[in-house]
């Protein structure tokens, strides 16, 4: 009986999800005895040509991390979709866009202009720019096309499962891999390795009367480590974020920034957080409400920190 085949790939990502797989520790050795890992550029030397040569649907499960930000990311998403029976969006970037999706607050052209005019160390009087095709003396060189709008994996290809988190925490990854090796899976489209409830349920801080009368930015105060962040005026994404991570950022006395993405049945994490935060404004008059609303720093960047691609509006106007 041939061993099931497993693959890992990274798109527009940081490598943290690879490290998250490594959190399996010695279990990875056990897993590698039960499955054949056939593609994993971080760790193994299989090249794209090896992948292209595989028959369709010959890989049992592929864990794909990273957002879709260039043509190579998209090509790999499509290729791995063809070659895999199951495709899993692993980590915040593949699931909801992650930090790379913050590029949806700007444009390819703006990024370029800033980099070539404004960064103080760039020395480029001839305004040379990277090109998708370049003719050099010896022949042609190509690099992928950079896209204007970052997409999630499921906005690009059909996805079977999601494992959220930036990155997904070790204990959860371990459970998820077990599920796949055992073939013990919930219905297609399920989110694995996370809770069905908001982070607040896991957070150990005491919640009494959640009302905010003044927004406090994290550099302005040392939070009381026992009390709910929101009650102290510090914006915390807990109410609008899926649990499963153990609320460890809160243990470090830092507020949640939403990396596990939206709760079940929520389409737009940022909209929900906006609603939750506004609902606890301790202000009655329009004037006071306006003041509080004006003091919220960077609504898009805070409420959609990890989920701008997986939102209703998806990007700012260009």
């Amino acid at each position, binding site marked *: 009986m041939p061993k099931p085949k497993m693959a890992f790939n990274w798109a527009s990502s940081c490598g943290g999800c690879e490290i998250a797989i490594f959190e399996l520790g010695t279990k990875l050795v056990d897993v590698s005895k039960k499955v054949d890992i056939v593609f994993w550029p971080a760790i193994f030397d299989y090249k794209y040509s090896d992948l292209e040569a595989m028959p369709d649907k010959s890989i049992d499960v592929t864990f794909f991390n990273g957002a879709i930000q260039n043509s190579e990311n998209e090509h790999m998403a499509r290729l791995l979709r063809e070659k895999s029976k199951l495709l899993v969006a692993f980590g915040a970037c593949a699931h909801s866009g992650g930090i790379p999706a913050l590029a949806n607050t700007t444009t390819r052209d703006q990024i370029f202009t800033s980099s070539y005019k404004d960064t103080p160390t760039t020395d480029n009087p001839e305004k040379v720019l990277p090109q998708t095709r370049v003719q050099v003396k010896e022949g042609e060189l190509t690099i992928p096309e950079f896209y204007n709008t970052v997409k999630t994996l499921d906005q690009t290809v059909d996805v079977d499962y999601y494992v959220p988190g930036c990155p997904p925490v070790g204990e959860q990854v371990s459970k998820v891999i077990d599920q796949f090796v055992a073939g013990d899976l919930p219905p297609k489209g399920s989110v694995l390795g996370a809770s069905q409830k908001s982070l607040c349920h896991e957070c150990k801080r005491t919640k009494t009367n959640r009302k905010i009368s003044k927004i406090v930015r994290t550099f302005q105060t040392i939070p009381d480590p026992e009390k709910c962040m929101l009650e102290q005026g510090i914006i915390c994404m807990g109410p609008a974020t899926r649990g499963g991570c153990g609320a460890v950022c809160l243990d470090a006395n830092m507020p949640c920034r939403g990396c596990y993405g939206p709760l079940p049945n929520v389409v737009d994490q940022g909209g929900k957080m906006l609603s939750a935060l506004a*609902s606890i404004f301790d202000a009655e008059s329009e004037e006071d409400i306006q003041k509080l609303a004006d003091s919220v720093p960077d609504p*898009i960047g805070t409420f959609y920190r990890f989920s701008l691609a997986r939102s209703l509006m998806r990007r700012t106007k260009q």
Partner: protein
Amino acid sequence: MVIGLSTRFEPKIVGFLCRWCAYTGADLAGTSRIKYPPNVTPIRVNCSGRVDPTFVLKALASGADGVLIAGCHPGDCHYTSGNVKTIRRFKLLQRMLNQFGVEKERVRLEWVSASEGERYARIVESMTKEIRSLGPLEWKTKVEA
């Protein structure tokens, strides 16, 4: 005989109207036979406080050129303070819409009582005019570009 169709842009505005005041006011505009543009598609909600900011985002992302939220005047809310909650969410939503690049005129919060049929009509008229001059939002095309 084919009558020449106007090629003038007709804004599509989604209206969330509270059943106790604004929707009744809109009804009154109708029964009073007041003439006003037909550009608002009304959706009745029990209270303007029911309007989740996500509804507004969904409307805009799905092709609406504008969204109107209308409820009872402050102090008159059937549920006492539902409309205060609306103001809280709306003010913060306005800030976020501004960051998205959606013009302020496209999303409005108005108070319309059950007897203010005329007022409702004028609000719809002014909003339609403003958004017509802004042009279509066509949010989907902005995303795909």
